[in-house]
């Protein structure tokens, strides 16, 4: 029951935040309750379900098993940082068009996982998609439409990249 605190400075969705926190404060609680970015959800608090996934320094991390102080100096992207000028990005749009979300609680974690995945593998097979998604749990969709949405987003992003 420590009252010791420490200073943390990090960038979230392009904005710099500085706070004084307890060393034991979890990154997910920091994002949600200190910064008010409540799009990142807690599903299991033991690093299994993936609902709390964000991208930190270019890689996905589970914020329910990461301390806020571990993010000192980090660049973080959360679900709130995906839409561009209020418009859904191609992954979000594909989730919408393919009915890839129901209750929406796990969705932010999936979106962040897929963001990293399609960055590394822009033309994945169905099997590769399923492997990439296997660390995120969804209880509503049976993953059928999430897999479809990832495929659709990949196609759209590839054709977009060619046009550019």
């Amino acid at each position: 029951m420590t009252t010791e605190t420490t200073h943390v400075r990090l960038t979230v969705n392009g904005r710099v935040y500085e706070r004084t926190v307890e060393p034991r404060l979890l990154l997910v609680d920091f994002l949600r309750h200190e910064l008010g970015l409540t799009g990142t959800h807690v599903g299991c608090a033991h690093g299994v379900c993936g609902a709390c996934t964000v991208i930190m320094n270019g890689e996905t991390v589970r914020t329910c098993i990461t301390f806020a102080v571990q993010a000192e100096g980090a660049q973080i992207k959360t679900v709130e940082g995906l839409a561009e000028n209020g418009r859904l990005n191609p992954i979000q749009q594909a989730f919408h068009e393919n009915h890839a979300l129901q209750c929406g609680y796990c969705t932010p974690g999936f979106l962040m996982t897929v963001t990293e995945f399609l960055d590394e593998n822009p033309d994945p097979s169905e099997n590769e998609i399923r492997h990439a998604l296997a660390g995120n749990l969804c209880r509503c969709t049976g993953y059928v439409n999430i897999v479809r949405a990832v495929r659709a987003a990949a196609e759209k992003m590839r054709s977009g990249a060619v046009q550019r």
Partner: protein
Amino acid sequence: MAETRSSGYIGRAVPRLEDSRLLRGLGRYVDDLAAPPGTLHLAFLRSPHAHARIGSIRTAAAAAIPGVHVIATAADLAGLFTALRADYERPGFNRSEWYSIAVDRARYAGEIVAVAVADSPYVAEDVLELIEVEYAPLPAVVTVADAVKPGVASLHPNIGNVFFQGSFKSPGFDAAFAAAPVIVRETFTGSRIASAPMEPRGGLAVYDPGRDDLTYHATTQMPHIMRTAIAESFGWSESQIRIIAPDIGGGFGPKAYIYPEDILSIALARKLERPVKWFCDRMEDLQTTLQARDHRFDGELALDRQGIIQALRVRIEVNAGAYAGYPFGSSIEAAGGAVMMPGPYRLKYYAYEARSIATNVCPAGAYRGVSQPTAFFVMEGLLDRAAAKLGLDPAEIRLRNILHADEFPYTNAIGIRYDIGSYEECLKRALALGDYAGYRSRQTPTRFVEGKYRGVGIACFTEHTGQGASRYRDRGIRRMPGYDSAVVKVLPGGKAAAYVSQTEIGQGSITTCAQIVADRLGLDINDVTIVEGDTSLTPHGSGTGASRGAVAAGGAVLRAADKVREKMLRIAGDFLEASPKDIELNDGYAHVAGAPQLRVAIAEIAAVAHAAHDRPPPKGHGFGLEATDHYDPPHVYITNATHLAWVAVDPATGLVSVERYLVVHDCGRVINPLVVEGQIHGAVAQGLGQALMERIVHGADGQQQTVHFLDYLLPTALDLPPIEIAHLETPSPETAGGFKGVGEGGVIGALPALANAVADALKSFNANINRLPLAPDHVLDLIDQHRDRRVTAA
């Protein structure tokens, strides 16, 4: 031809209105709500024993920690609320109480013994370990068999550990059963499972001491029922209580219940006059959110030599856990399974005995499909056994017994009327789409193909949907109203809003209700707002559950919208000097049928109705353009489906993989095929989880050993195949709109389809598939036990 924007929404795959917020991280789930200044956080000290006397509780050390507000025990909260009583006095029901904090005795591991109230959730949880409780452990009864042994102490006064028992026997049953030349018998057991929505349970109670009123934000599917329960428990007026269900991260049944944490947080908010918040972690959720499917069904199916069903008898025992949950009570699984068991087949003689037994484990209750998945695991399992005994193909025995289109309406052996359906057609379509005959013709007796045993399973079933008040009264579930309600308004500017008594928990009801309103009022769907999940904004009704939404809430929306429509047509008739019956509403305009140029904007009609126009309302009509209506589905509406599953069993690992999955179903008139397919996908996945991997394990002492997602396994993207769906659409002639429900069918079909497929794959071992899950250890046992029985011929 250009599609009209504002008609024909019903039946179309409209992408959901719910999505945009949720995709941008702007959803507002309970734990996302900004806590008001001064909010206190709760942590719950739970009994580590499944059954124990509670002696002294020492709280001083915990209370002394900075940031701790108070440590509350049952003694501190005495008199603030009463126990919840779900069941009424009625033959077969042994009424019991569930008090929200253990007084003297804990009846399951996880029952709340004390509550820490602190400035932060971290501190509240920290100090739990400083609370010292003297427990005197008592013998724990974990199984039904133990709970009903002579001499075992009753967990509740005067119930003998039997919460509920019921029975039924068709006149003439005994003679029909005795005369049948072929009987197949088997005992089937499920495993206890968890609904495990991705969002655990939580609540935020905000009390206003000046007004003595409460706003409670809760993870609930049924806010109106919750309001009634709280009013009753606290002796409060419902008018002083507002329940808000914000975004809900999945429900699946267990979030329909009122939990001890709800009552305790409200009691503390009122006592301390401070906002109070709690949010379960996953371990608490897996340990204390109502569990399900801890069933034993002894089934006996009697047939003639042609495989025609003569009679069915079943004895059902449900391990109901320590308490009867509110609102559905103790009979939900036992009686539900019994009543829903006579499925899509001609069955004249039926008999059941069913009972719910109290034990020292977490209470059990309604989870997607309730007992129907087990019931059809039994029915379809018995049919496959009968087919094998008679040398018939599993498809053939079903074709001989399934109801034909010309037999509807059909009243089954227990008095449930099937209004209409496509039972035989679904089966035939599934067999054709799955090339069942071709698959069978290629199968070898060993079923061994490329290193794995492969097989196919069929499941035909009925799904009880859209139950109305009469059904719940008949079942003795009086805490569930059975009707739903809607207020539909066209606002002064010409846009519409509907306030509906159900709650959106992921099922897409905002979109489907908006489709109905837009169609009936001739508006663009983006000009329709749907509000759900707030007892102060929406009219009283049942809420979300039991595949009732499209039927009951959809019906209420349709009826209320039609009342508003009628007045709009009157006003338009005045404008256009035409009879209201000749006017159509479309694209934001009212126009004369066949003369689209003769039109008036709906915005102008709205202006008339709200005194914002020179023109007065039509004679006999006052101002305003809104209506309330309620819909009580007169009976229960039966959705039908056939599932086919193809599996491969790896004899080295025991792992079952599902290689193909096909659903052919009929849920009446479809409002939104996208949403319907999503419901089926998700439900099949939950059924697959139950069939192949999910199980709650208890030690002999009643300790739950599966308390996180590392040992309570949920299906992942690697476990699910793509799911193929074909829709047949036979609108109900009886429900408003012709809709039927579809939320649970996927689970119901997945259990028997997968179990039968694994049995088929392991046919050469003569493996008896009578318990779930078919996890690798179980499958390897089946293979090893039966290796000597293995058929190697031909």
